């Protein structure tokens, strides 16, 4: 198994060169990661996330995630055969999908049951780590042990005695990609803030919050809205930073819904940070510093 390396300048440039001009950054980065892998592997694993909730009415992921393998196959030449993992929980169980993929792999067919069980339990451990406050890279290292290829280590950030707690809301592929977010979580930690991630909000809490607003059909953005609402209600969260990707379709609408329907009666300061491939490090640093200072000052009063 080969995994693409951490995002860097080279991957970004590769992605930007081979992808559509005005699509969101995460897709460009995904193209970069695919290009990084394609000459090193015999099969390419590309997920197609269609629906990630079993119930919940008309909830789907964003069209770009649904069409990701189509875009990859349409736009790139000389790809190895693509293993498409179509996660469509509304129509097929995870086990069914996994088995279909396992059957399409060459080699021995045995051992599916055991490996599926171990995958599910590992994922559960990973999610428990995330709930406990680890970032994805850290959780991966902890769960997979030595084998984890979890990017680089990050300062722990739970600086004792610091008085500001900041919630970081946004897609994990932006917030936890130290290259594209210019290591925003680490930066906030080194400014003395306690950072809480979206992944630390339990599912029940998010659903409780979502019940207060009209339905939204995008599964991942729904979580962002529920988490923001949850954080704004909590007294121990002193500021919320919402991270968006430029040209992200669902974010443009859900961001507006958050600022008009969710933030209405809340006094907690909220900052929206829009990231793209041109975002400068200094821009992120200045705004993070200013925000933490502002929150700290308003707390002091």
């Amino acid at each position, binding site marked *: 198994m080969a995994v693409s390396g951490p995002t860097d300048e080279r991957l970004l440039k590769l992605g930007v060169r081979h992808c559509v001009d005005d699509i969101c950054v995460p897709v460009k980065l995904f193209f970069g990661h695919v290009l990084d892998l394609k000459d090193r592997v015999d099969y390419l694993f590309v997920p197609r996330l269609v629906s990630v909730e079993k119930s919940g009415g008309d909830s789907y992921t964003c069209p770009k995630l649904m069409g990701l393998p189509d*875009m990859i196959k349409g736009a790139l030449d000389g790809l190895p055969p693509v293993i498409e993992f179509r996660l469509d929980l509304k129509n097929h169980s995870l086990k069914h999908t996994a088995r279909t993929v396992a059957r399409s792999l060459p080699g021995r067919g045995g051992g599916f049951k055991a490996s599926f069980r171990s995958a599910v339990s590992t994922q559960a451990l990973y999610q428990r780590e995330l709930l406990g406050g680890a970032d994805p890279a850290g959780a991966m290292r902890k769960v997979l042990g030595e084998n984890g290829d979890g990017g680089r280590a990050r300062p722990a950030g739970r600086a004792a005695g610091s008085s500001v707690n900041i919630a970081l809301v946004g897609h994990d592929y932006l917030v936890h990609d130290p290259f594209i977010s210019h290591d925003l979580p680490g930066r906030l930690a080194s400014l003395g803030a306690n950072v809480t991630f979206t992944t630390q909000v339990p599912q029940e809490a998010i659903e409780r919050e979502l019940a207060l607003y009209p339905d*939204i059909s995008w599964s991942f953005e729904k979580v962002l809205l529920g988490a923001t609402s949850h954080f704004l209600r909590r007294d121990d969260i002193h500021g919320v930073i919402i991270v968006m990707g430029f040209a992200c379709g669902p974010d443009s609408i859900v961001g507006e819904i958050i600022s008009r329907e969710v933030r209405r009666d809340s006094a907690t300061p909220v900052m929206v940070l*829009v990231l793209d491939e041109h975002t400068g490090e200094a821009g992120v640093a200045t705004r993070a510093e200013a925000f933490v200072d502002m929150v700290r000052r308003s707390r002091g009063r």
Partner: protein
Amino acid sequence: MKVAFPHMGNAYISLSALLEGMGAEVVMPPRPTRKTIDLGALHAPEFVCLPFKVNLGDNIQALDMGADTLAMVSGMWACRFGYYGRVQHQILKDSGYEFSSILLGRDSLASVYNAFGGTAPGSLPVSWFNAIRAFRRKALAVDELEAKARRTRPWESSRGATTRALGSALVGLHAATGSARTRDALADGLCMLDAVELDRSGRRPLTVTILGELYVVLEPALNFDIERVLGEMGVTALPVLSVYRWLFRSLKVDPRITLDEKRATRLARPYIALDLGGEEHMTIAGTIRAARNGHDGVIHLYPFTCMPENICRAILPRLETEYDIPVLNLCLDEHASPAGVATRLEAFVDLLRQRRRRVES
């Protein structure tokens, strides 16, 4: 009740027939211009798609003209369009406008049905029945007039004659009430277009398929009137989408549309495995069909950051080589300039002419 709704091409003719049939007074904002777009962009989220900004601008102008009710369709789709009504109406309410909103799709069907209880000319079911018939009649008539104009324009001997004739035909149609008068207005309009003087000597117009995102394909204010511009350059421009098709697609009452949608989806399957909530199947299938029908080229129009069309944008270069048909991608936003679009259209048409000469020699 003074109702307003955002513009989309000539959809206003059939939609106002529907609402007037229900006894509502229709407030019609002026056709979108740069001013509308700027007005909308001022209040809209920064990187939302362009149609959102134009619709918002339309709504602001309508409210300034005295509308007290805004109507919009709404829904739970993967495409952002389903959220337009909800977010736009909230933005307007936050800006201090007071109005009631009808969100077809989000409000229950019963509440939309009963919303016109106070204004309907007769009993509710009868009024709805008549209004929907008038709506369909006018939508069909507009479709017929537009199709006729499309076929006439490249041959006209004095430039602009077709556009003028179409303009007055549509004005006549919009003013007509009742089935007999609508029929007469349509006949008059077709006569007006027939009367346009043609010059068939030695001309062999190029044929170009126009496809892409619904709103920018159908709204001349956004695509810089691409159909007219191409027509006057002597090119037959055939959009794969129409207002009639859009209005009646989801109702599934016209078997021709339903069947064609199914066929298009099947044709697009090898390239796009799933429905993404926009017109992506029409974009892919339209390109393949254009090549099969021997069209000279394809123009793909989409608004900046449009999700489904950006996926097509990634796939179209492959179709271009596989089916050997030239494709021009035009991404439109509030900063697109008429000169920029015109230059690219001219260059594309030149290229198509050369290609035809080369193929024929």
